[in-house]
């Protein structure tokens, strides 16, 4: 199944029945799939007039307590960032998928990891964070969509699945879990559903009293601290106590790196991989422990090195090397492997 279609089906299986979005390459197969699939299960696909409208439809739908999804790609996500800030401030659980394409600006339509900073730091104005899951396969994309809905509900917070363009476009076998009946979800007492038998619910992100707003900021920070304590996810691959090199890579790039590691292992090179699965929260401590076992550190990305800062935070004081391709170019395992060998053989000299 194509990654974008798997994302759509995973949302259906997770009990999501509403999608609001706007077409943009390379994620349009998600809305196309759901436009066909939702009528079979009593769901609704609605094409908005823009990403700005789509994110606010998502916001409204989320306020009624239902599971709701939007998907977009980089320029569209930028347009949604206004709504993202409001949704996070109002603490509404919604799920976003960003099938990242190369930027900045209109950029191109080929795969990229150039939205790492945006996803992990700069998702909108104000003091807020969203949980970000980065799948490396179509199976993980599907799994993480379901997980994203669960985490969104758990933290009443937006959650994003951050997939580079390869995730959306490649075809792989996928196993789906059983369908969750949307009627089986517990009621959300904060939702706007009509005030029969209770006081009216008001969902707002406006707090004009600075003392009240500060309390909101403090409460949100506590929630993010809880996410950082409980939700860090990562994968370790080929870790040993005397690694010549530890590579940091996330998403599909991690698979290219694994192939390169395996190829070089046959030639006697000892290289490990640390793959962050949640890119926010980032597993700094776990990464630091693994980094201590390696002589050299390197980040490999489809960007100009946006994750390097997080690697440095994992291993304070250590030099972090970088290799990446941009513009939508995907390096081959040989290309990546050559960079590893060059670095190791030079003893870390550039």
């Amino acid at each position, binding site marked *: 199944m194509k990654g974008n279609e798997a994302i759509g089906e995973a949302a259906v299986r997770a009990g999501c029945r*509403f999608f*609001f979005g706007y077409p943009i390459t390379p994620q349009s197969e998600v809305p196309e799939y759901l436009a066909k699939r939702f009528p079979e299960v009593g769901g*609704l696909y*609605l094409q*908005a*007039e*823009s990403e*700005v*409208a*789509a994110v*606010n*439809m*998502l*916001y*409204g*739908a*989320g*306020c*009624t307590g*239902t599971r*709701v999804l939007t998907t977009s790609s980089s320029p569209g996500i930028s347009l949604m960032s*206004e*709504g993202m800030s*409001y949704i996070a401030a*109002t603490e509404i659980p919604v799920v976003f998928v960003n099938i990242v394409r190369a930027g900045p600006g209109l950029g191109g339509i080929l795969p990229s990891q150039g939205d790492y900073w945006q996803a992990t730091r700069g998702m909108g104005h104000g003091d807020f964070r969203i949980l970000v899951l980065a799948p490396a396969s179509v199976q993980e994309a599907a799994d993480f969509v379901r997980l994203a809905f669960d985490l969104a509900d758990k933290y009443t917070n937006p959650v994003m699945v951050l997939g580079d363009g390869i995730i959306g476009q490649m075809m792989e076998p996928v196993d789906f879990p059983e369908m969750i009946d949307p009627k089986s979800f517990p009621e959300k007492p904060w939702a*706007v*559903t*009509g*005030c*029969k*038998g209770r006081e*009216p*619910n*008001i*969902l*707002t*992100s*406006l707090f004009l009293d600075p003392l009240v707003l500060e309390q909101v900021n403090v409460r949100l920070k506590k929630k993010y601290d809880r996410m950082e304590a409980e939700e860090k996810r990562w994968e370790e691959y080929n870790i040993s106590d005397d690694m010549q090199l530890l590579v940091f890579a996330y998403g599909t790039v991690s698979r290219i790196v694994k192939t390169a590691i395996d190829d070089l292992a046959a030639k006697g090179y000892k290289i490990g991989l640390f793959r962050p699965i949640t890119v926010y929260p980032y597993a700094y401590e776990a990464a630091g422990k693994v980094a201590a076992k390696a002589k050299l550190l390197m980040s490999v990305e489809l960007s100009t090195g946006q994750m390097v800062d997080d690697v440095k935070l994992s291993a304070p004081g250590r030099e972090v090397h970088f290799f990446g391709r941009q513009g939508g170019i995907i390096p081959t395992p040989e290309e990546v492997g050559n960079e590893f060998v060059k670095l190791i053989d030079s003893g870390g000299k550039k």
Partner: protein
Amino acid sequence: MVNTIFSRPESLRDVPTHYCPGCTHGITHRLVAEVLDELNIRERAVGVAPVGCAVLAYNYFNCDFVEASHGRAPAMATGIKRTRPDLIVFTYQGDGDLASIGTAEIFHAANRGEKFTVIFVNNAIYGMTGGQMAPTTMPGQVATTCPFGRDVSSAGYPVRVCEVLSALTTPAYIVRVKMNEPAGIPAAKKALRKAFTYQVEGRCFSLVEFVSTCPTNWGMKPIKACEWATSDMIPYYPIKEFKTPDDPLPPGLKTKEGGK
């Protein structure tokens, strides 16, 4: 025996509002609340507050409410109404919110025929931000960002929302009422009642535009403001029903529903 002949609608909370003296928002709030009461829909109503003077409307209405970002109330209302068609959803928006920053959202919500109700307060100025030029500011009208009066050669002519939206093919109820003359108020309520009734019946998108006054930012006493609305606004913003869901569709359409 004493009979109560006038009381606060249940749909309005017993709290002071922040609106300026002479402002018509208060009466408009009351009319909406009366209609929610009379149609017995308060308990399934969800309001969507705008950015602008009515940003705190959720503190005054006694029903579920959400607060939208600037101009996006119709998109939020779409998300609510589409996921819960049983709810009665209304937005309450001013002219800057609806006719400037939210033009795309209101236009496409109307065009999709979203079955919620829009309360549109047109007082020809940005109130909350302190009297800047609005898309509905009259030619020559002075505002803080057009200190020499609105210059149509640069700013264009004021936007007539009812006229624009009623040009769309999708059936809708589009009406303009006035809050600056006593006779306008019962007529405004009648229009509001019709708008909400169409929603209760699941028939169509509805928008009621209220020609309103802003004595504070117009720099006029309330009576003078009411007179100015009559002399300078209403000739350009005529009070009438622009569109009803019973209007015939334009020729050339094969079926009413379209599609299959």
